[in-house]
Protein backbone atom coordinates (compact mmCIF):
# COMPACT_ATOMS: atom_id res chain seq x y z
CA UNK A 1 0.00 0.00 0.00
CA UNK A 2 1.37 3.39 -0.96
CA UNK A 3 2.19 5.73 1.88
CA UNK A 4 2.43 8.74 -0.43
CA UNK A 5 -0.47 11.18 -0.35
CA UNK A 6 0.91 13.62 -2.91
CA UNK A 7 3.80 13.53 -5.34
CA UNK A 8 5.10 16.23 -7.62
CA UNK A 9 7.99 16.21 -10.08
CA UNK A 10 9.74 19.42 -11.05
CA UNK A 11 12.26 20.49 -13.63
CA UNK A 12 13.99 23.79 -14.25
CA UNK A 13 16.67 25.28 -16.43
CA UNK A 14 19.83 26.79 -14.96
CA UNK A 15 18.55 30.27 -15.85
CA UNK A 16 15.61 29.85 -13.49
CA UNK A 17 17.90 29.46 -10.46
CA UNK A 18 18.52 32.56 -8.36
CA UNK A 19 22.26 32.28 -8.74
CA UNK A 20 24.61 35.20 -9.20
CA UNK A 21 28.37 35.70 -8.85
CA UNK A 22 28.13 36.99 -5.27
CA UNK A 23 26.58 33.74 -4.08
CA UNK A 24 29.31 31.64 -5.74
CA UNK A 25 32.08 33.84 -4.35
CA UNK A 26 30.53 33.76 -0.88
CA UNK A 27 30.32 29.95 -1.06
CA UNK A 28 34.06 29.85 -1.71
CA UNK A 29 34.57 32.04 1.35
CA UNK A 30 35.16 35.44 -0.19
CA UNK A 31 33.38 38.38 1.36
CA UNK A 32 31.93 41.03 -0.95
CA UNK A 33 34.32 42.11 -3.71
CA UNK A 34 37.34 40.60 -1.97
CA UNK A 35 38.09 37.71 -4.32
CA UNK A 36 41.42 38.06 -6.07
CA UNK A 37 41.79 37.85 -9.86
CA UNK A 38 41.15 35.57 -11.70
CA UNK A 39 38.43 34.16 -9.41
CA UNK A 40 35.61 36.66 -10.24
CA UNK A 41 36.38 36.29 -13.95
CA UNK A 42 36.24 32.50 -13.69
CA UNK A 43 32.92 32.70 -11.84
CA UNK A 44 31.44 34.84 -14.63
CA UNK A 45 32.77 32.47 -17.25
CA UNK A 46 31.33 29.46 -15.40
CA UNK A 47 27.92 31.15 -15.02
CA UNK A 48 27.81 31.75 -18.78
CA UNK A 49 28.77 28.16 -19.63
CA UNK A 50 26.66 26.39 -17.00
CA UNK A 51 23.19 26.44 -18.70
CA UNK A 52 24.40 24.05 -21.42
CA UNK A 53 25.53 21.49 -18.84
CA UNK A 54 22.85 21.68 -16.19
CA UNK A 55 19.35 20.16 -16.06
CA UNK A 56 17.59 20.47 -12.72
CA UNK A 57 15.13 17.77 -11.76
CA UNK A 58 13.38 17.02 -8.51
CA UNK A 59 10.62 15.02 -6.90
CA UNK A 60 8.78 15.90 -3.70
CA UNK A 61 6.51 13.33 -2.06
CA UNK A 62 4.21 14.13 0.86
CA UNK A 63 3.67 11.12 3.10
CA UNK A 64 0.23 10.22 4.44
CA UNK A 65 -0.03 11.99 7.76
CA UNK A 66 -1.81 9.03 9.40
CA UNK A 67 1.36 6.95 8.84
CA UNK A 68 3.83 9.51 10.19
CA UNK A 69 4.86 9.80 13.82
CA UNK A 70 7.77 11.61 15.44
CA UNK A 71 9.65 10.29 18.47
CA UNK A 72 12.39 11.78 20.60
CA UNK A 73 15.12 10.90 18.11
CA UNK A 74 13.33 9.31 15.18
CA UNK A 75 10.60 9.77 12.60
CA UNK A 76 8.45 6.82 11.62
CA UNK A 77 6.52 6.25 8.40
CA UNK A 78 4.58 3.06 9.04
CA UNK A 79 7.24 0.36 9.47
CA UNK A 80 9.99 2.56 8.12
CA UNK A 81 12.02 4.28 10.82
CA UNK A 82 14.35 7.22 10.21
CA UNK A 83 16.85 7.50 13.07
CA UNK A 84 17.31 11.21 12.60
CA UNK A 85 18.70 12.00 16.04
CA UNK A 86 17.25 14.39 18.57
CA UNK A 87 18.04 17.64 16.79
CA UNK A 88 16.08 16.91 13.62
CA UNK A 89 13.25 15.12 15.47
CA UNK A 90 12.80 18.23 17.64
CA UNK A 91 12.51 20.45 14.56
CA UNK A 92 10.01 18.08 12.91
CA UNK A 93 8.02 17.35 16.08
CA UNK A 94 5.13 19.73 15.45
CA UNK A 95 4.72 18.62 11.82
CA UNK A 96 1.50 16.99 10.65
CA UNK A 97 3.42 15.03 8.04
CA UNK A 98 6.71 15.06 6.20
CA UNK A 99 7.73 15.59 2.62
CA UNK A 100 10.62 13.50 1.26
CA UNK A 101 12.54 14.83 -1.72
CA UNK A 102 15.29 14.17 -4.25
CA UNK A 103 16.84 16.85 -6.45
CA UNK A 104 19.74 16.85 -8.90
CA UNK A 105 21.34 19.13 -11.46
CA UNK A 106 22.63 16.14 -13.44
CA UNK A 107 26.21 15.00 -14.08
CA UNK A 108 27.25 17.68 -16.63
CA UNK A 109 28.99 20.22 -14.43
CA UNK A 110 30.64 17.67 -12.16
CA UNK A 111 32.16 15.90 -15.18
CA UNK A 112 33.70 19.16 -16.39
CA UNK A 113 34.95 20.23 -12.96
CA UNK A 114 36.48 16.81 -12.25
CA UNK A 115 38.43 16.87 -15.53
CA UNK A 116 39.75 20.37 -14.80
CA UNK A 117 40.59 19.59 -11.17
CA UNK A 118 42.67 16.64 -12.30
CA UNK A 119 44.01 18.42 -15.35
CA UNK A 120 45.78 21.68 -15.90
CA UNK A 121 43.27 24.14 -14.43
CA UNK A 122 42.30 23.14 -10.90
CA UNK A 123 41.22 26.70 -10.00
CA UNK A 124 38.66 26.73 -12.79
CA UNK A 125 37.63 23.20 -11.83
CA UNK A 126 37.06 24.26 -8.25
CA UNK A 127 35.03 27.31 -9.32
CA UNK A 128 32.77 25.09 -11.45
CA UNK A 129 32.48 22.57 -8.63
CA UNK A 130 31.40 25.32 -6.23
CA UNK A 131 28.94 26.71 -8.77
CA UNK A 132 27.48 23.22 -9.23
CA UNK A 133 27.05 22.76 -5.47
CA UNK A 134 25.30 26.11 -5.16
CA UNK A 135 23.11 25.35 -8.19
CA UNK A 136 22.02 22.10 -6.53
CA UNK A 137 21.07 23.91 -3.32
CA UNK A 138 19.29 26.62 -5.33
CA UNK A 139 17.33 23.98 -7.27
CA UNK A 140 16.10 22.36 -4.04
CA UNK A 141 15.03 25.75 -2.70
CA UNK A 142 13.28 26.61 -5.97
CA UNK A 143 11.33 23.34 -5.97
CA UNK A 144 10.57 23.60 -2.24
CA UNK A 145 9.18 27.05 -3.01
CA UNK A 146 6.83 25.48 -5.56
CA UNK A 147 5.75 22.99 -2.87
CA UNK A 148 4.65 25.91 -0.71
CA UNK A 149 1.70 26.33 -3.07
CA UNK A 150 0.59 22.80 -2.19
CA UNK A 151 1.14 23.59 1.50
CA UNK A 152 -0.94 26.76 1.26
CA UNK A 153 -3.97 24.70 0.23
CA UNK A 154 -3.72 22.91 3.58
CA UNK A 155 -2.69 26.00 5.55
CA UNK A 156 0.63 24.28 6.16
CA UNK A 157 4.04 25.82 6.55
CA UNK A 158 7.44 24.18 6.14
CA UNK A 159 10.35 23.47 8.46
CA UNK A 160 13.95 23.72 7.29
CA UNK A 161 15.03 20.83 5.10
CA UNK A 162 17.23 18.12 6.57
CA UNK A 163 19.46 15.64 4.77
CA UNK A 164 21.12 12.38 5.82
CA UNK A 165 24.72 13.17 6.74
CA UNK A 166 23.85 16.39 8.56
CA UNK A 167 22.63 17.39 12.02
CA UNK A 168 23.46 13.98 13.48
CA UNK A 169 21.43 12.01 10.91
CA UNK A 170 23.65 9.23 9.55
CA UNK A 171 24.23 9.27 5.81
CA UNK A 172 23.62 5.48 5.91
CA UNK A 173 19.93 6.37 6.28
CA UNK A 174 19.93 7.39 2.62
CA UNK A 175 18.93 3.78 1.97
CA UNK A 176 15.69 4.23 3.95
CA UNK A 177 14.97 7.51 2.23
CA UNK A 178 15.60 6.09 -1.24
CA UNK A 179 13.28 3.15 -0.46
CA UNK A 180 10.39 5.63 -0.75
CA UNK A 181 11.20 6.36 -4.41
CA UNK A 182 11.20 4.15 -7.49
CA UNK A 183 14.68 3.07 -8.59
CA UNK A 184 16.65 5.64 -10.59
CA UNK A 185 14.20 8.46 -9.81
CA UNK A 186 15.39 11.66 -11.52
CA UNK A 187 18.43 9.63 -12.67
CA UNK A 188 19.81 9.49 -9.13
CA UNK A 189 21.36 6.28 -7.83
CA UNK A 190 22.93 5.39 -4.49
CA UNK A 191 26.31 3.70 -4.04
CA UNK A 192 27.05 1.09 -1.35
CA UNK A 193 28.58 3.86 0.76
CA UNK A 194 25.40 5.94 0.25
CA UNK A 195 27.01 8.43 -2.09
CA UNK A 196 24.52 9.80 -4.59
CA UNK A 197 25.27 9.79 -8.32
CA UNK A 198 25.22 12.36 -9.82
CA UNK A 199 27.19 13.76 -6.88
CA UNK A 200 25.46 17.11 -7.29
CA UNK A 201 22.20 15.82 -5.82
CA UNK A 202 20.37 16.50 -2.57
CA UNK A 203 17.96 14.24 -0.71
CA UNK A 204 16.09 14.94 2.48
CA UNK A 205 12.93 15.60 4.41
CA UNK A 206 10.87 18.67 5.25
CA UNK A 207 8.28 18.87 8.02
CA UNK A 208 4.84 20.21 7.00
CA UNK A 209 2.11 21.52 9.30
CA UNK A 210 0.17 24.47 10.63
CA UNK A 211 2.42 24.92 13.66
CA UNK A 212 5.89 24.44 12.20
CA UNK A 213 8.39 27.14 11.34
CA UNK A 214 11.63 27.56 9.46
CA UNK A 215 14.54 28.46 11.72
CA UNK A 216 16.64 31.32 10.33
CA UNK A 217 19.96 29.98 11.69
CA UNK A 218 20.34 26.31 10.71
CA UNK A 219 24.03 26.31 11.82
CA UNK A 220 22.74 26.16 15.39
CA UNK A 221 21.49 22.64 14.92
CA UNK A 222 24.17 21.39 12.53
CA UNK A 223 27.17 19.39 13.75
CA UNK A 224 29.57 20.05 10.84
CA UNK A 225 32.13 22.03 12.82
CA UNK A 226 34.49 22.50 9.89
CA UNK A 227 31.87 23.72 7.43
CA UNK A 228 32.96 26.85 5.53
CA UNK A 229 29.50 28.41 6.03
CA UNK A 230 29.83 28.08 9.80
CA UNK A 231 33.35 29.54 9.72
CA UNK A 232 32.15 32.52 7.69
CA UNK A 233 29.20 33.06 10.00
CA UNK A 234 31.52 33.05 13.01
CA UNK A 235 33.73 35.51 11.17
CA UNK A 236 30.72 37.79 10.82
CA UNK A 237 30.23 37.61 7.05
Amino acid sequence: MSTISFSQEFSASFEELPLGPDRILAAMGYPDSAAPAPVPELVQEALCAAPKHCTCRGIFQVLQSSNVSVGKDFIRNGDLRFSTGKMIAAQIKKSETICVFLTTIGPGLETISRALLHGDDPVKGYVIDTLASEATEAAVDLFAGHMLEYCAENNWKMTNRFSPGYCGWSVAEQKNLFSLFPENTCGITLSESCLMHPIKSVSGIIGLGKNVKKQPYPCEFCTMNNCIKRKLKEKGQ
Partner: protein
Amino acid sequence: MSETTDRIALLVKRGKINKASPFPPDLKEQDGADEQTKAALDSGAKPSEILDGCMKGMQEIGTLFSQNKVFVPDLLMSAKAMSAAMAHLKPHFQSGEVKRKGTFIIGTVTGDLHDIGKNLVSMVVEGCGWEIVDLGVDVGADTFLEAIEQHPDCAVGLSALLTTTMPAMSQTVAAIKEKSPQTRVLIGGAPITREFADKIGADCYSPDPQGAANYLSTAAA
Protein backbone atom coordinates in the same frame (compact mmCIF):
# COMPACT_ATOMS: atom_id res chain seq x y z
CA MET B 1 66.95 33.14 4.01
CA SER B 2 68.55 34.35 0.76
CA GLU B 3 67.07 36.89 -1.60
CA THR B 4 66.31 34.04 -4.04
CA THR B 5 64.47 32.11 -1.35
CA ASP B 6 62.41 35.15 -0.42
CA ARG B 7 61.51 35.92 -4.05
CA ILE B 8 60.44 32.33 -4.76
CA ALA B 9 58.45 32.33 -1.51
CA LEU B 10 56.62 35.50 -2.56
CA LEU B 11 55.84 34.18 -6.04
CA VAL B 12 54.54 30.91 -4.64
CA LYS B 13 52.48 32.64 -1.96
CA ARG B 14 50.96 35.02 -4.51
CA GLY B 15 50.33 32.25 -7.05
CA LYS B 16 52.44 33.86 -9.80
CA ILE B 17 53.09 30.86 -12.04
CA ASN B 18 54.99 32.35 -14.97
CA LYS B 19 55.47 35.55 -16.94
CA ALA B 20 52.54 34.74 -19.27
CA SER B 21 50.13 34.52 -16.37
CA PRO B 22 48.30 37.86 -15.91
CA PHE B 23 47.63 37.07 -12.25
CA PRO B 24 48.03 38.53 -9.73
CA PRO B 25 47.53 41.85 -11.58
CA ASP B 26 50.21 43.73 -9.63
CA LEU B 27 52.83 41.20 -10.84
CA LYS B 28 51.65 41.26 -14.46
CA GLU B 29 54.46 40.86 -17.02
CA GLN B 30 56.95 40.03 -14.28
CA ASP B 31 58.75 36.72 -14.08
CA GLY B 32 56.85 34.03 -12.25
CA ALA B 33 58.03 31.08 -10.18
CA ASP B 34 58.90 29.27 -13.41
CA GLU B 35 61.30 31.85 -14.88
CA GLN B 36 62.64 32.98 -11.51
CA THR B 37 63.62 29.43 -10.56
CA LYS B 38 65.31 28.75 -13.88
CA ALA B 39 67.20 32.04 -13.73
CA ALA B 40 68.27 31.43 -10.13
CA LEU B 41 69.57 27.94 -10.88
CA ASP B 42 71.35 29.17 -14.03
CA SER B 43 73.10 31.84 -12.01
CA GLY B 44 74.31 29.33 -9.46
CA ALA B 45 71.70 29.37 -6.73
CA LYS B 46 71.53 26.17 -4.73
CA PRO B 47 68.48 24.00 -5.43
CA SER B 48 67.90 23.89 -1.67
CA GLU B 49 67.34 27.68 -1.73
CA ILE B 50 64.54 27.17 -4.25
CA LEU B 51 63.05 24.38 -2.17
CA ASP B 52 63.22 26.59 0.92
CA GLY B 53 61.38 29.31 -1.01
CA CYS B 54 58.64 26.89 -2.05
CA MET B 55 58.33 25.66 1.52
CA LYS B 56 58.17 29.17 2.93
CA GLY B 57 55.59 30.31 0.36
CA MET B 58 53.37 27.27 0.85
CA GLN B 59 53.66 27.47 4.62
CA GLU B 60 52.59 31.12 4.56
CA ILE B 61 49.60 30.53 2.28
CA GLY B 62 48.70 27.38 4.25
CA THR B 63 48.69 29.33 7.49
CA LEU B 64 46.51 32.07 5.99
CA PHE B 65 44.15 29.34 4.77
CA SER B 66 43.94 27.87 8.29
CA GLN B 67 43.01 31.35 9.51
CA ASN B 68 40.28 31.75 6.85
CA LYS B 69 42.14 34.73 5.41
CA VAL B 70 42.54 33.10 2.00
CA PHE B 71 40.46 30.34 0.41
CA VAL B 72 40.75 27.26 -1.78
CA PRO B 73 41.37 29.09 -5.11
CA ASP B 74 44.28 31.02 -3.54
CA LEU B 75 45.78 27.77 -2.29
CA LEU B 76 45.35 26.13 -5.71
CA MET B 77 47.07 29.06 -7.46
CA SER B 78 49.98 28.89 -5.02
CA ALA B 79 50.26 25.14 -5.56
CA LYS B 80 50.43 25.70 -9.30
CA ALA B 81 53.22 28.25 -8.87
CA MET B 82 55.01 25.81 -6.55
CA SER B 83 54.73 23.06 -9.17
CA ALA B 84 56.26 25.39 -11.77
CA ALA B 85 59.27 25.90 -9.53
CA MET B 86 59.48 22.26 -8.47
CA ALA B 87 59.59 21.11 -12.11
CA HIS B 88 63.08 22.67 -12.35
CA LEU B 89 64.16 20.86 -9.20
CA LYS B 90 63.28 17.38 -10.47
CA PRO B 91 66.79 16.54 -11.75
CA HIS B 92 68.30 17.74 -8.48
CA PHE B 93 65.96 15.50 -6.49
CA GLN B 94 66.86 12.58 -8.73
CA SER B 95 70.59 13.18 -8.31
CA GLY B 96 70.19 13.42 -4.55
CA GLU B 97 71.54 16.97 -4.48
CA VAL B 98 68.42 18.11 -2.64
CA LYS B 99 66.55 15.85 -0.32
CA ARG B 100 62.89 15.60 0.55
CA LYS B 101 61.86 15.50 4.18
CA GLY B 102 60.26 12.14 3.59
CA THR B 103 57.45 10.42 1.74
CA PHE B 104 53.80 11.06 2.42
CA ILE B 105 51.32 8.51 1.11
CA ILE B 106 47.79 9.84 0.83
CA GLY B 107 44.40 8.56 -0.31
CA THR B 108 40.65 8.76 0.23
CA VAL B 109 39.40 5.58 1.91
CA THR B 110 37.23 2.80 0.43
CA GLY B 111 33.76 3.86 -0.70
CA ASP B 112 34.58 7.55 -0.79
CA LEU B 113 35.15 9.40 -4.05
CA HIS B 114 35.80 12.91 -2.70
CA ASP B 115 39.23 14.29 -3.41
CA ILE B 116 39.38 18.09 -3.24
CA GLY B 117 40.36 18.05 0.44
CA LYS B 118 42.88 15.27 -0.11
CA ASN B 119 44.45 17.17 -3.00
CA LEU B 120 44.77 20.35 -0.95
CA VAL B 121 46.60 18.44 1.78
CA SER B 122 48.88 16.88 -0.86
CA MET B 123 49.76 20.28 -2.29
CA VAL B 124 50.56 21.90 1.04
CA VAL B 125 52.55 18.90 2.31
CA GLU B 126 54.48 18.72 -0.97
CA GLY B 127 55.19 22.42 -0.68
CA CYS B 128 56.62 21.74 2.75
CA GLY B 129 59.25 19.47 1.25
CA TRP B 130 57.66 16.01 1.20
CA GLU B 131 57.42 13.63 -1.70
CA ILE B 132 53.80 12.73 -2.33
CA VAL B 133 52.50 9.32 -3.31
CA ASP B 134 48.84 9.96 -4.12
CA LEU B 135 46.87 6.72 -4.23
CA GLY B 136 43.68 8.49 -5.36
CA VAL B 137 40.14 7.84 -4.14
CA ASP B 138 38.28 4.72 -2.99
CA VAL B 139 41.55 3.21 -1.73
CA GLY B 140 41.46 -0.06 0.21
CA ALA B 141 43.68 -0.96 3.17
CA ASP B 142 45.67 -3.43 1.03
CA THR B 143 46.68 -0.69 -1.38
CA PHE B 144 47.91 1.47 1.49
CA LEU B 145 49.88 -1.50 2.88
CA GLU B 146 51.50 -2.18 -0.49
CA ALA B 147 52.55 1.46 -0.76
CA ILE B 148 53.97 1.40 2.78
CA GLU B 149 55.99 -1.68 1.86
CA GLN B 150 57.53 0.28 -1.01
CA HIS B 151 58.19 3.34 1.20
CA PRO B 152 58.88 1.92 4.67
CA ASP B 153 59.76 5.29 6.26
CA CYS B 154 56.68 7.08 4.98
CA ALA B 155 53.84 8.79 6.83
CA VAL B 156 50.28 8.12 5.68
CA GLY B 157 47.28 10.43 5.30
CA LEU B 158 43.70 9.15 5.10
CA SER B 159 40.77 11.28 3.99
CA ALA B 160 37.00 10.69 4.27
CA LEU B 161 34.07 13.01 3.61
CA LEU B 162 31.22 10.64 4.38
CA THR B 163 30.21 9.36 7.80
CA THR B 164 29.57 6.00 6.11
CA THR B 165 33.20 5.69 5.11
CA MET B 166 34.57 6.45 8.57
CA PRO B 167 34.49 2.71 9.46
CA ALA B 168 36.71 2.08 6.41
CA MET B 169 39.11 4.67 7.82
CA SER B 170 39.10 2.86 11.14
CA GLN B 171 39.81 -0.50 9.44
CA THR B 172 42.62 1.01 7.38
CA VAL B 173 44.31 2.55 10.43
CA ALA B 174 44.05 -0.80 12.25
CA ALA B 175 45.55 -2.65 9.28
CA ILE B 176 48.43 -0.17 8.99
CA LYS B 177 49.17 -0.22 12.71
CA GLU B 178 49.09 -4.01 12.80
CA LYS B 179 51.52 -4.44 9.93
CA SER B 180 53.63 -1.32 10.40
CA PRO B 181 53.17 0.07 13.94
CA GLN B 182 55.86 2.73 13.49
CA THR B 183 54.12 4.36 10.50
CA ARG B 184 52.55 7.67 11.43
CA VAL B 185 48.93 7.95 10.30
CA LEU B 186 47.18 11.30 9.86
CA ILE B 187 43.45 11.56 9.23
CA GLY B 188 41.12 14.34 8.14
CA GLY B 189 37.84 15.19 6.42
CA ALA B 190 34.60 16.99 7.23
CA PRO B 191 33.05 14.41 9.60
CA ILE B 192 36.34 13.56 11.37
CA THR B 193 37.08 14.75 14.90
CA ARG B 194 40.04 14.50 17.25
CA GLU B 195 38.01 12.12 19.42
CA PHE B 196 37.47 9.82 16.45
CA ALA B 197 41.20 9.94 15.64
CA ASP B 198 42.05 8.96 19.24
CA LYS B 199 39.46 6.20 19.22
CA ILE B 200 40.78 4.52 16.07
CA GLY B 201 44.46 4.95 16.97
CA ALA B 202 45.46 7.55 14.37
CA ASP B 203 48.51 9.61 15.31
CA CYS B 204 47.16 12.96 14.15
CA TYR B 205 43.91 14.67 13.23
CA SER B 206 44.02 17.99 11.43
CA PRO B 207 41.06 20.06 10.27
CA ASP B 208 43.22 21.82 7.66
CA PRO B 209 46.19 21.09 5.37
CA GLN B 210 48.70 23.24 7.25
CA GLY B 211 48.00 21.35 10.48
CA ALA B 212 48.98 18.14 8.71
CA ALA B 213 52.15 19.75 7.32
CA ASN B 214 53.07 21.14 10.74
CA TYR B 215 52.60 17.74 12.37
CA LEU B 216 54.76 16.07 9.73
CA SER B 217 57.50 18.67 10.16
CA THR B 218 57.67 18.25 13.91
CA ALA B 219 56.68 14.67 14.66
CA ALA B 220 57.30 12.58 11.61
CA ALA B 221 60.23 14.14 9.74
